[in-house]
């Protein structure tokens, strides 16, 4: 086993060709520039001759990831000149999409072991994986409509690829969260496992996947998993149009100031 490589946001360990990427940023692995930088560093430097599988998981108590760093986004909107905001957001979205497409299409089996909160951009990151293992505590949600947005990191096209339209509409149009059992029942997650068992189960899946000849494994994956490119492009266009609207800044302000127990639920209209 290689010694772990530590970035401020992620820890990476490689054992027997399986790269384990631990999201490790309090409070809940929010995805902003630092996390994006860290994940790009990991996935742009993967040795694909030596890598046989990748596991994504979190070491943070609250969960896998609460999604986009909304506080950083709000502060950016306050502190960056309006004439520059559109360009900066667009650049960020293009970077996120490029990274998530890269993870999505890696020629090795990828597994996301999810516990706790897996919301918004965090859910979108999990959806880049081939297989999702959901611990008992896992909860999946797309709460973006409360911010005046649709998910912008490729989540809806990837969800559409995996589950039926009714499930997509239920998740997006209500913002509700699904528990692990529900996620498995609709085909979003492959297995529900006990609290704390996600990483070990993911390792077992990785060991099984690495029993297959690498080229065969890669070809099998390429045959059954294609990138929904047109829908991803449509999502980027829609998201970048919506984020320019004033209601988004107001919704972000309300989120940042919300001290209620369930900030992911929409406020009163």
């Amino acid at each position: 086993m290689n010694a772990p490589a530590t970035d401020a946001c992620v820890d990476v360990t490689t054992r027997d060709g399986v790269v384990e990427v631990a999201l490790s940023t309090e409070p809940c692995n929010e995805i902003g520039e630092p996390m994006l930088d860290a994940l790009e560093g990991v996935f742009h430097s993967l040795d694909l001759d030596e890598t046989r599988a990748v596991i994504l998981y979190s070491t943070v108590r609250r969960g896998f990831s609460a999604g986009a760093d909304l506080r950083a986004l709000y502060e950016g909107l306050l502190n960056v000149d309006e004439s520059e905001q559109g360009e900066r957001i667009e650049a960020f979205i293009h970077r996120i999409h490029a990274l998530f497409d890269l993870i999505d299409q890696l020629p090795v089996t990828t597994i996301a072991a999810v516990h706790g909160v897996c919301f918004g951009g965090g859910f979108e990151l999990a959806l880049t994986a081939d297989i999702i293992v959901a611990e008992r505590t896992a909860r999946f949600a797309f709460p973006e409509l409360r911010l005046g947005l649709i998910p912008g990191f490729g989540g809806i096209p990837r969800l559409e690829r995996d589950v039926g339209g009714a499930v997509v509409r239920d998740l997006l149009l209500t913002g509700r969260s699904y528990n692990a059992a529900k996620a498995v029942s609709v085909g979003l997650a492959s297995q529900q496992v006990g609290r704390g068992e996600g990483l070990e189960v993911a390792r077992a899946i990785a060991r099984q996947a690495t029993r297959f000849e690498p080229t065969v494994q890669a070809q099998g994956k390429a045959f059954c998993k294609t990138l929904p490119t047109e829908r991803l492009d449509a999502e980027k266009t829609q998201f970048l149009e919506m984020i320019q609207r004033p209601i988004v800044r107001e919704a972000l302000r309300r989120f940042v100031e919300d001290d209620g127990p369930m900030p992911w639920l929409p406020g009163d209209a």
Partner: protein
Amino acid sequence: MSTVHELIDLAASHFGVDGSGLAPDDDLFASLGIDSVKALELMTELELEWDIEIPDYELREVKTFADLAAVCDRRR
């Protein structure tokens, strides 16, 4: 046992608090000392225990154990 008392017992046991001091009309978030993540945990435990689904948006008006029990009773 009524739903609200089952709920109180389950929540108290899960969060390691003394359930004997909890009443149906108590503010469940304050009396359990739970944040948003723990609120989700409680939802999950109730859903799995009773094989029901509790859509998050139904919790917007929930303040007390009795309020939450009413939400669960609609699905039991």
